[in-house]
C-alpha cells in the first residue's frame, strides 16, 4: 500500500487521542468539500437567485425562476434561469477598483466568480450556470478568475 503518512507511536495510551486527531486532520479533503458547499456554494447560489428575481424578473411576482441542480460525487452544478431579457455580464465593472469600492451594489457577479469554480451565462444572459467542484483543490479564494 502507498503510504501517505507514517507514524511510529510509543506504547502510551495518552498518545492515542493526538495521533487520531492528527490523522483525521490530514484527511481534510472531505471536510473542505463540505465547508465549500456550506459557504461558497450557498453564497453563489444566493447571488444568482437574487439577481434573477431583482434584475431578470424585475421584482415581478408573477414571473418565475427556474433552478436546475445536478449533484454527483465530483461536483454540484446549478443553473438559474429567469424570465428577463438578459444582460451582458462583460459590461459589469470590477467592484474592487477604487472607483467602485464604496459602491453599495455591484459585488454579486464578482463574488459568484470568486467563490465558484465555474460561472457561465447563456448568450441571452438570463441563465447562469454555477459549478462547484467537490474534489477540487479550490480553497475559498480558488474559484475561476474568469
Amino acid at each position, binding site marked *: 500500500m502507498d503510504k501517505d503518512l507514517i507514524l511510529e507511536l510509543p506504547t502510551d495510551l495518552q498518545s492515542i487521542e493526538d495521533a487520531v486527531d492528527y490523522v483525521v486532520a490530514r484527511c481534510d479533503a472531505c471536510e473542505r468539500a463540505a*465547508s465549500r458547499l*456550506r*459557504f461558497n456554494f*450557498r*453564497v453563489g447560489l*444566493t*447571488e444568482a437567485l*437574487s439577481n434573477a428575481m*431583482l434584475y431578470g424578473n424585475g421584482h415581478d411576482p408573477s414571473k418565475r425562476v427556474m433552478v436546475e441542480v445536478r449533484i454527483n460525487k465530483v461536483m454540484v452544478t446549478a443553473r438559474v434561469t429567469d424570465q428577463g431579457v438578459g444582460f451582458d455580464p462583460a459590461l459589469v465593472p470590477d*467592484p*474592487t477598483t477604487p472607483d467602485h*469600492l*464604496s*459602491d*453599495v*451594489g*455591484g*459585488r*454579486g457577479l*464578482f*463574488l459568484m466568480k*470568486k467563490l465558484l469554480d465555474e460561472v457561465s451565462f447563456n448568450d441571452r444572459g438570463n441563465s447562469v450556470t454555477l459549478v462547484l467542484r467537490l474534489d477540487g483543490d479550490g480553497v*475559498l*479564494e480558488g474559484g475561476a478568475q474568469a
Partner: protein
Amino acid sequence: MGFQVSQSGDVTLVEVEGQLIVGNRQELKQKVLEHLEEGDRKFVIDFSNTGYIDSSGLGVLVSLSKKIREQSGELRLSSLNEDLKTLFELTKLDTLFRIADDKAQALDGF
C-alpha cells in the same frame, strides 16, 4: 434567524443570527437607522453567529457605514470567521471597515 440589538455603554451592538442576505438586509438596515435617528453614534455589528453574507448584505454594511459617518458616527464589525473574512478580503471591503476579532475588542476604547 434575526438581529439582536443591545446597548453596551453608548455603543449599540447588533448581533446577526443566521444569514445576512438579500431577504433580510432591509430589516438590519431599518434597525440600525432607527438607532441612528434616536441619536446613537457608535455601532458594532457582530457576526459570531452568522453563517454567510451575500453581496447585498455587504452592500447594506457599506451603506450603513456611510450614513453613520455622515452623522459623525462610526460602524465597526466584529467576529468574522475565516470564510467571512475572506469575503471582505476578496471584495477589498476589509480596507473600508474597522474589523475587530471579537465583540470585546470592538467595544474596547470605542
